[in-house]
């Protein structure tokens, strides 16, 4: 079942590679495959038992027994939402690239499907090495998506994206191998139970952090993100903001907290500090952006700062809020990038000053834009509000000063989003070409509908989503709050 969800897109990519020569067909096949994948992944949801923290739908196959590496897959309440988010966003991305991708459509569709496979695999992997392989493998299609179909400065952005992530990851590889050799297995559940001394945990934490922090991205290693976002095609930005960024935070959740609990607690001030800088500083940077996509990109860094604070509060509100906020951010930032893509397809510029007065010519678009702008600002009733309030609650319990500073991020967030909205949508129509823009087509409206539903569903009734998390988060917190290293090692500090 999990393998089916994971590898169906890859099979689809092979089908296109071998069987399909026609662009239109390739589009159709890719979209259908991703849609079928989504439907199958929903079966995971219906078959999921929310009362247990155990990994479910587990699969295990012999792979490299000498080294203790197996093909192990499984999901729990923490990973399942991300699997679903991925399978949910991919068809939307493919639909969004229906008209904007005109060259080398087959290759694009293949790259996208391969990307989906690897990302779903990352969230399902229960073997640390398998995780690493998929985590790295994902770089290849994303590198090509940015580099081949991206904007004018795409080559620089693609290389920067690849090398930043790779440089972070290789250190994690050493940490993974170290753990695997110590435990004689790379099974993640087994590693969670592995006793480790404090010193070792500290080094491993730093190695993991080198990889995860780049991916989140945390300040100051976020600089690849604005470039990658700006240059990537719309769907690439959506997948980047919606899913790839979540992989870093997921890494902290899945590995750092349970495997290295003592070091995680030890480094909490560092994570809080970096996150606060990210929240406040990148929000200020976002305020100053002249480029629509760059603004949304910086806002992503700022929002992810909230997420990392939530994860490191070590209480239920904070962690669940953090996870929920990741899903929310995936939906909202994804939608914002799609919205930028819509006007970009029409005007071929992302400069905020080139727009203005869109409300007069594109009423439907403006309403949807407003909705997501408000959701991004965290208006009560939208999904982000729930996530942010939970994170702040958690942060108050953990550290009041952090919560207070983080809360200013909400204000700044409202400021840059609303100001951007005002400049783009309201006011008189100054530029002639704006006047000529047609409103959303049916296809484009269809893109946003499911996202809008999610915004309000999570906004008004987050219960089912949180229920999915409870058991696994409780278990995670139990693991994260144990003193693995033992009193002796702690006493040294």
């Amino acid at each position, binding site marked *: 079942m999990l393998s089916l969800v994971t590898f169906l897109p890859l099979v689809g990519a092979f089908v296109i590679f071998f069987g399909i020569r026609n662009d239109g067909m390739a589009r159709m096949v890719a979209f259908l495959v991703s849609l079928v994948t989504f439907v199958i992944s929903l079966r995971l949801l219906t078959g999921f038992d929310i009362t247990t923290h155990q990994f479910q739908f587990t699969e295990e196959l012999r792979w490299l027994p000498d080294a203790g590496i197996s093909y192990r897959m499984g999901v729990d309440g923490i990973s399942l939402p991300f699997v679903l988010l991925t399978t949910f966003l991919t068809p939307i991305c493919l639909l969004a690239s229906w008209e904007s991708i005109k060259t080398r459509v087959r290759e694009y569709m293949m790259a996208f499907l391969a990307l989906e496979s690897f990302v779903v695999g990352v969230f399902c992997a229960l073997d640390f090495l398998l995780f690493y392989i998929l985590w790295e493998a994902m770089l290849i299609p994303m590198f090509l998506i940015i580099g081949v179909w991206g904007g004018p400065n795409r080559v620089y952005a693609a290389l920067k994206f690849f*090398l930043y992530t790779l*440089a972070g990851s290789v250190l994690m590889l050493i940490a993974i191998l170290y753990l695997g050799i110590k435990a004689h297995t790379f099974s993640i559940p087994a590693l969670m139970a592995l006793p480790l001394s404090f010193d070792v945990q500290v080094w491993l934490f730093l190695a993991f952090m080198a990889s995860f922090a780049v991916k989140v991205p945390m300040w100051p290693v976020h600089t690849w993100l604005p470039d990658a976002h700006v240059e990537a095609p719309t769907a690439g930005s959506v997948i980047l903001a919606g899913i790839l960024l979540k992989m870093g935070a997921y890494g902290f959740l899945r590995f750092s907290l349970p495997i290295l609990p003592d070091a995680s607690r030890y480094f909490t001030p560092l994570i809080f500090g970096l996150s606060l800088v990210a929240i406040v500083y990148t929000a200020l940077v976002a305020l100053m952006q002249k480029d629509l996509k760059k603004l949304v990109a910086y806002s992503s860094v700022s929002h992810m700062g909230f997420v990392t604070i939530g994860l490191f509060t070590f209480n239920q509100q904070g962690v669940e809020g953090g996870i929920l906020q990741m899903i929310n951010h995936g939906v909202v930032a994804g939608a914002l990038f799609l919205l930028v893509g819509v006007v970009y397809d029409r005007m071929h510029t992302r400069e905020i000053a080139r727009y203005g007065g869109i409300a007069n010519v594109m009423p439907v678009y403006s309403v949807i834009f407003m909705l997501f702008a408000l959701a991004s600002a965290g208006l009560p009733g939208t999904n982000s509000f729930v996530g942010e309030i939970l994170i702040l609650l958690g942060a108050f319990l953990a550290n009041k000063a952090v919560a207070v500073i983080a809360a200013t991020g909400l204000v700044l967030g409202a400021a840059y989003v609303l100001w951007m909205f005002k400049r783009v949508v309201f006011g008189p129509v100054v530029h002639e070409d704006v006047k000529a823009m047609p409103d959303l087509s049916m296809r484009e409206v269809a893109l946003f509908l499911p996202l809008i539903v999610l915004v309000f569903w999570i906004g008004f009734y987050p219960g089912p989503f949180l229920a999915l998390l409870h058991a696994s988060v409780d278990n995670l917190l139990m693991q994260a709050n144990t003193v693995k290293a033992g009193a002796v090692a702690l006493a040294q500090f």
Partner: protein
Amino acid sequence: MPVQMPDINLVAMLPEIVLSLLGLVLMLMSAQGDENRGGRISMLAMIGLVVAALITVGGKDATGFGSHFINDAFARSMKLLMYLSTGLVLFMSADYMKKHRIDGGEYQVLTLMALLGGMLMASAGDFLMLYLGLELMSLSIYVLAAIQRDELRSNEAGLKYFVLGSMASGFLLYGISLIYGLTGTTAYSGVAAALDPAHGGHMGTALILGVVMVMAGMSFKIAAAPFHMWAPDVYEGAPTSVTAFMAVLPKVAAFAGIFRVLLIAFPSLHSQWIPLVQLLAVFSMGVGAFAAIAQTNIKRMLAYSSIGHVGYILLGLAANSAAGLQSVVTYLAIYIFTSVGAFAIILLLNAGGIGDETEDYKGLAHKRPLLAFLMALFMFSMAGIPPLAGFIAKLYIFLAALQAGMLGIAIVGVLFSAVGAFYYLRIVKFMYFDAAKETETFGMAVGVPMRAILTVTGVIILVWGVFPESLLKWTATSVKAFAM
């Protein structure tokens, strides 16, 4: 005093005998005949390789000539890798040889002779045998590098390789003579016995000097930094098919030789040679990572990249464990396929009039998507990105290194590999992200041999990346001979 007859064991070296006889016959054939004799000779050489491979596969453990010659699982595995490298390179260079008018037969004969030398190195149980094998291989390759007689750069490459290679051979011989002087024997097992701590053991600085000299000579052959200076020039100047050959065969042969020297002759000196190997590994990884960035010629770039690969292989050797040896053989096997695949594409483009500058690859993906895809596979594999075979190769090297406690060097190694990824990516960038020159059509035809080679190498890179178990089993059995 009774004269002791040496235990001549011809069966043990049957593959060598077959190939040397074939080489002699082919040499006669190349001296006369019509324009098309090259094709016939290539065909016969290839058949000879298959026969030798079959004999090798069926071979049994044996020694001959007073332990000068060892036929064990390790030697057989290394020989199979050598047949493979030679066969693939001969097979893919047919068109290239014809175009450059070097297919008269000497080329094929020299290739076989180089192979023979390499085989002797893999089976050597004595320093003299090692030296003879090394010289046979090297001399053949010196000539191969210069085989384009009317091409200045080819001559330069041959001469440069010859002069520097002779130097290295001198080092090797000097080291061997020191070791002989101190231990009274040139047989590996005899040296090991003389150095056994139980019988007097260590023999001071002169012995260490001998080991260092031997290692220096061998390092030259694998182009490990700081003995790598010749590689970029020679790789660039030699005919591309010869470059492909140089990139694979001597590496396998020399590593086989180094294995035996270090593990059979000097096991008691491991605390001396491990740091040496580590040093070579770090230098090579570093040179491979940083120097390749500045290269604009793809052959030069691959020369530096191969220096980097040698660094990783040495890292596995420095682990001095069964896992380390296995990782080395695994790396070599994967390296052969990636390297041959990449050179096949270079040869192919070369036949289409495209030069060796990396810029010449601009826009390849637009005109020939499949070729570009394969080249991208080879590049990503060399960079060690999963799920390709190159990752498995590096994974096992690092696993072995960490098991041996070489944490610091492993970290340096992965960081260098991240740096190195840049220049592989740059090739992908040229192929995929840049537009081709207006006039460039990349319209060359892909012949059947090329199709076969590219399919095989491409598929293997993918399959071994995902299902490496069969390869790992094979490499594990092939290093069992060194019971560690």
